[in-house]
């Protein structure tokens, strides 16, 4: 085993390397490619935070996109320049219509509001188990969608809010991604984290041993929602438009796909799944507009990326139900011992 100092050093070096690479990319690559790189970062953060609830805590939630929506809308309304706000959202109440926050506070407030929503919805709903919980959180997603569509004064309904300032850039995204991974990593390696995993393994037994089920689940749920809210806000300020459809069932689904394909109860799995499942559909998107390969023109295949995604997901669930990475975790020891380590070994 490597000592802790050495590991910390390696991690630091890796981070520096990551940001140097991102810096170079930023200079060399086209805006289109940078956008994909940024989407990868946002999706990693979203999936890792989803894994905290769905994977580590065993609270199978389908509401992640709902929290993204909350964060995105709150941040969008707060950060919208006053001039634009007066035109786009003239019906806003005065206290909201006259504020314009800078990006960071907007993000954080967006995340906090999402977390508060999680607290309100989670308190009753987290008592449910298994797929009932999943369905209830899906119900929450539908409710959020309807509310956003109906609250015209705040959200412009189905038209959505456009013309957001493109605050989100590579640094915002990847610093956020690193913070998310760090926080989730700290949580799962704390006493809290072990309580969570006890719940996942056997909630009845964990409760019998004195683990306060609802408290643990609620914490995971709220932390997940906080990061989802910020992720949603970053996403909105990258694309510069938010509509109710940006955070629909499809988005929850694609996050769940990433999470399941990578491995639900692993941070590494989240990173792998999010990266893979952001890049592959991006390639497939070309098929939807029609391309010419080697002289053969392929007509536009609408829906093909979703078709491929869902087929891949079904195959992964049948063949490799724990995902590509499983519940293993990346560790520096990997390079020394030439093998993947489980979490427990890493702690020792």
């Amino acid at each position, binding site marked *: 085993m490597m000592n802790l100092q050495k590991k910390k050093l390696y991690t630091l070096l890796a981070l520096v390397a990551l940001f140097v690479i991102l810096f170079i990319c930023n200079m060399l690559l086209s805006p289109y490619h940078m956008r994909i790189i940024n989407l990868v970062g946002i999706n990693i953060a979203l999936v890792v935070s989803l894994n905290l609830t769905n994977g580590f805590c065993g609270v199978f939630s389908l509401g992640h996109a709902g929290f993204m929506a909350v964060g995105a809308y709150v941040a969008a309304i707060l950060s919208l320049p006053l001039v634009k706000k007066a035109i786009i959202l003239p019906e806003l109440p005065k206290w909201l219509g006259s504020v314009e926050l800078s990006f960071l506070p907007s993000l954080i407030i967006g995340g906090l509001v999402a977390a508060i929503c999680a607290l309100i919805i989670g308190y009753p*709903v987290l008592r449910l188990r298994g797929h009932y919980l999943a369905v209830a959180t899906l*119900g929450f997603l539908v409710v959020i969608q309807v509310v956003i569509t*109906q609250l015209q004064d705040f959200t412009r309904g189905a038209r959505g809010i456009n013309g957001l300032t493109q605050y989100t850039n590579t640094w915002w995204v990847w610093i956020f991604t690193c913070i998310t991974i760090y926080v989730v990593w700290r949580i799962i390696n704390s006493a809290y984290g072990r309580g969570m995993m006890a719940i996942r393994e056997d909630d009845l037994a964990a409760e019998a041993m004195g683990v306060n089920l609802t408290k643990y689940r609620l914490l995971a749920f709220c932390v997940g929602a906080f990061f989802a809210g910020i992720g949603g806000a970053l996403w909105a300020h990258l694309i510069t438009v938010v509509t109710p459809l940006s955070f629909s069932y499809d988005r929850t689904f694609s996050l769940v796909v990433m999470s399941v394909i990578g491995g639900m109860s692993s941070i590494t799995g989240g990173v792998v799944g999010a990266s893979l499942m952001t890049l592959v559909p991006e390639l497939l998107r070309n098929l939807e507009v029609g391309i010419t390969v080697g002289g053969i023109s392929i007509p536009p295949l609408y829906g093909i990326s979703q078709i491929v995604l869902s087929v891949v997901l*079904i195959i992964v669930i049948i063949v490799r*139900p724990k995902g590509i990475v499983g519940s293993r975790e990346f560790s520096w020891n990997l390079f020394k011992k030439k093998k993947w380590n489980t979490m427990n070994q890493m702690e020792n």
Partner: protein
Amino acid sequence: MDSTYLLQQIVNGIGLGSIYALVAIGFSITYSILRLINFAHGDILMIGSYCALFIFLSGKVPLVVGLLLAMGFAALIGMLVERIAYRPLRTASEESMLITSIALSILIENLGILTVSAQPRKFVFPEVFAKNHELAGVTFNNMTILTVGVAVLLMILLTFFVKNTRLGTAMRACSENIGVARLMGIDINIVVAIAFAIGSALAAVAGIMLGGQYGRIDPLMGFIPGLKAFVAAVIGGIGSIPGAVLGGYLLGLFEILLVGFLPIEYTGYRDAFVFILLILVLLLRPNGILGSAEGRKV
């Protein structure tokens, strides 16, 4: 509010409720046997309606034949879906099955978009079905009569099948204890296939009736009715066929009365209310109205 208005809303609610009930039955029977929430069920409804559309368009087949063909085709698709995607997951976790069903739902919807395009199609029943009747101030057309009539007829047939046939008994046995049912010599694969066939055929009928009422269909039409029928199944007590029927009618009435009596600015929240109702039922009475308590292995 005068009573005619209320009566009118109730008639409309029963019309909608019949559709929910038909779809909810499918949710319930597959759930009762496999503990599977089949989100792709709503999309089978869409397949049924498109199937009927092509039959109506292509030749002059009588309505009943068209209906039966659509039911048969949907049943085949349902069995196919089960064979390919769900059978390998018999021993998997509830969540794995749930995710798979969501994936299947997205797959079917997008295959629909790919093959028949996302553009809504006109779905017109023969003229006679648009004919209005009036009774005590309440108006309803032949389409409503057809919907309710067919739904009730099918439910009676289904009840007879489940209660009085050998396979029906086997099905009830499987829904109680699948392991012991196998010891009796019941081939689970056959029972599950039949459950999917029945559920899908009923969903196809619901799809056709839904198309007939709205006059148009599209590849995504099944999603929301499917979700709502699931809510109906939960309200009635998922796993119970009478529960699914009751839940379907209750939800249909709830929804129509909500829209009929809420101030106009709140009617947009209709779907939100349905799902808040779902969450409330899950919390307060998770086994629904007629469901039996589900034991949990410790």
